[in-house]
């Protein structure tokens, strides 16, 4: 399989703190790659480097065979990498439709306003916010805002979607719906790179998982390989017997 994203030797420092240190991995086309690690491991920083919010101090990012290291975020979206934010960033005083229209207007296709509105309405339906299209974004619940994040990113018609903890703060029903949505997105041909703390969800969704700890890549592999890796168990999961609980199929 072709890799759509190649991260090679990426390092990012903030003053004396090395947030991401010499991390390399690749993401295959059509794959769901999970990114896990304890708080402060550098997961969101890695996302910010991939989509251009931060410039890497060292290393390269290649997307679809094209070097995008140091590209600004708006350029990266045009090339086909969209993302959501862990701390949601709704455009509060715009309607949901306008929020998503921004994504469609300035995304990969750079649609004109009319086409973008039509596309946005469709994406809102897809994430289950269709009946609230004319509400102001500020009035949504946190679950709604997470969906809005996903909708805006999807409206950009990305080839690669970066999802930053879209399940955090949702209740079990909402989680089930979101997992379903992520699967649908992948089935529509979009590659997915997702950060998630919710182990059961990421274990069942991901084709492969990358584990970060203190800015370094600790492990990489299929979910069942990763959770049995002793380093991962120690750094992240804490108790060895938790593995049995997580891998139990019921």
């Amino acid at each position, binding site marked *: 399989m072709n890799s759509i994203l190649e991260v090679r030797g990426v390092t990012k420092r903030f003053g004396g703190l090395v947030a991401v240190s010499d991390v390399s991995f690749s993401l295959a086309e059509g794959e769901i790659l999970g990114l896990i690690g304890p708080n402060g491991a550098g997961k969101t920083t890695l996302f910010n480097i991939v989509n251009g919010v931060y410039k890497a101090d060292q290393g390269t990012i290649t997307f679809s065979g094209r070097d995008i290291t140091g590209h600004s975020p708006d350029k990266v979206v045009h090339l086909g990498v969209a993302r959501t934010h862990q701390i949601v960033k709704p455009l509060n005083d715009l309607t949901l439709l306008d929020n998503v229209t921004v994504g469609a207007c*300035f995304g990969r296709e750079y649609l004109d306003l009319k086409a973008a509105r039509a596309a946005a309405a469709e994406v809102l339906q897809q994430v289950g916010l269709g009946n609230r299209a004319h509400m102001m974004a500020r009035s949504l619940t946190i679950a709604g805002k997470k969906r809005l994040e996903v909708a805006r990113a999807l409206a950009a018609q990305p080839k690669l979607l970066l999802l930053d903890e879209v399940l955090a703060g949702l209740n079990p029903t909402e989680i089930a719906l979101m997992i379903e949505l992520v699967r649908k997105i992948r089935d529509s041909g979009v590659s997915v790179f997702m950060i998630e703390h919710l182990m059961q969800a990421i274990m069942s969704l991901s084709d492969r998982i990358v584990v970060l700890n203190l800015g370094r890549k600790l492990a990489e592999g299929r979910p069942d390989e990763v959770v049995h890796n002793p380093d991962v168990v120690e750094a992240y999961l804490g108790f060895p017997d938790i593995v049995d609980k997580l891998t139990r199929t019921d």
Partner: protein
Amino acid sequence: MILRRPFFWLVLLASALFVFIPLRSNNVLLREDLILVAVAIILASNLNLMIGYTGYVNFGNIIFFGLGGYVGLYLATVRGWNLMLAAVVAGVAVSLFALLFGLAILRLRGAYFALATIGVLEAVQAFVSNFNPWGRATGMYVSFSAYQPLGGAMRALWITYYLIIAVMALSLILSLAIKNSKFGLGLFAIREDEDAAVVLGVNATVYKAIIYSVSAFLPAIAGTLMFYKNGMIDPSIAFELTLSIEAIVMLMLGGQGTVMGAALGGGLYETLRSYLLTSPKLSSFHLVIAGGLLLLVVLFAPGGLIGWLYRLAPRARKVIE
């Protein structure tokens, strides 16, 4: 299409009334009142592009008006250009100036940007006060003969009045067109959350510089026309910080982010100001009242009059933009 929007026709209707009412009654006093109202609306609605649409508070907005006045007056009187040509060239020149400055100071956000705009205002004023071709601190005068090409001073006053009304109509139509465009949506996204806008693909650096430059164009033209009509210009009246702040008061009063709000605020505030300035007891209090008004609006009706209307009748959004 902008032609299908009711508000577009409302703007044309209002502008037509501005033209015909003083003309029919040949009422020069009314014309002089309306010209001030028109200038207020021009300043407020172009400032709205920065504050209301993009979320950047420009305290130096009056430099566009003042510089436009200087460039236009210089071309029209010293160089003997046709007034309209001089005004348009002044508009283009000031827009280019704004583009260059915009690219530099729009890297700043929030209060830092606002402070930088005051800095630009002071710097421009200091420069012009020492610039020989523009008469340094004494400024420039329009000699009586300069009105001859327009058929004498009397006719020239009417012509500049019509031109200013045209600039007012253009300002409102421009605001309306931007509001309903993809470009406008990008600006709104920047206003709501610039980081999010950039991640969604909006090239914020370019968008901000363009809107800063666009917001300079029509005020600069109005500056040429207004100072030509007044017959003189000097640095202290062309670059008065108070006027910048009053433009902000107008916008907040009417409702930032809406086309109607800028028009309404400009009209109401200017009417109030004229009343206060000419009333014997209150004439030195107009800034106190302006300050109090701003405080009340910000505290109790941050959306201004139009924001308040939207809350009362959400459907009004569709007609009054």
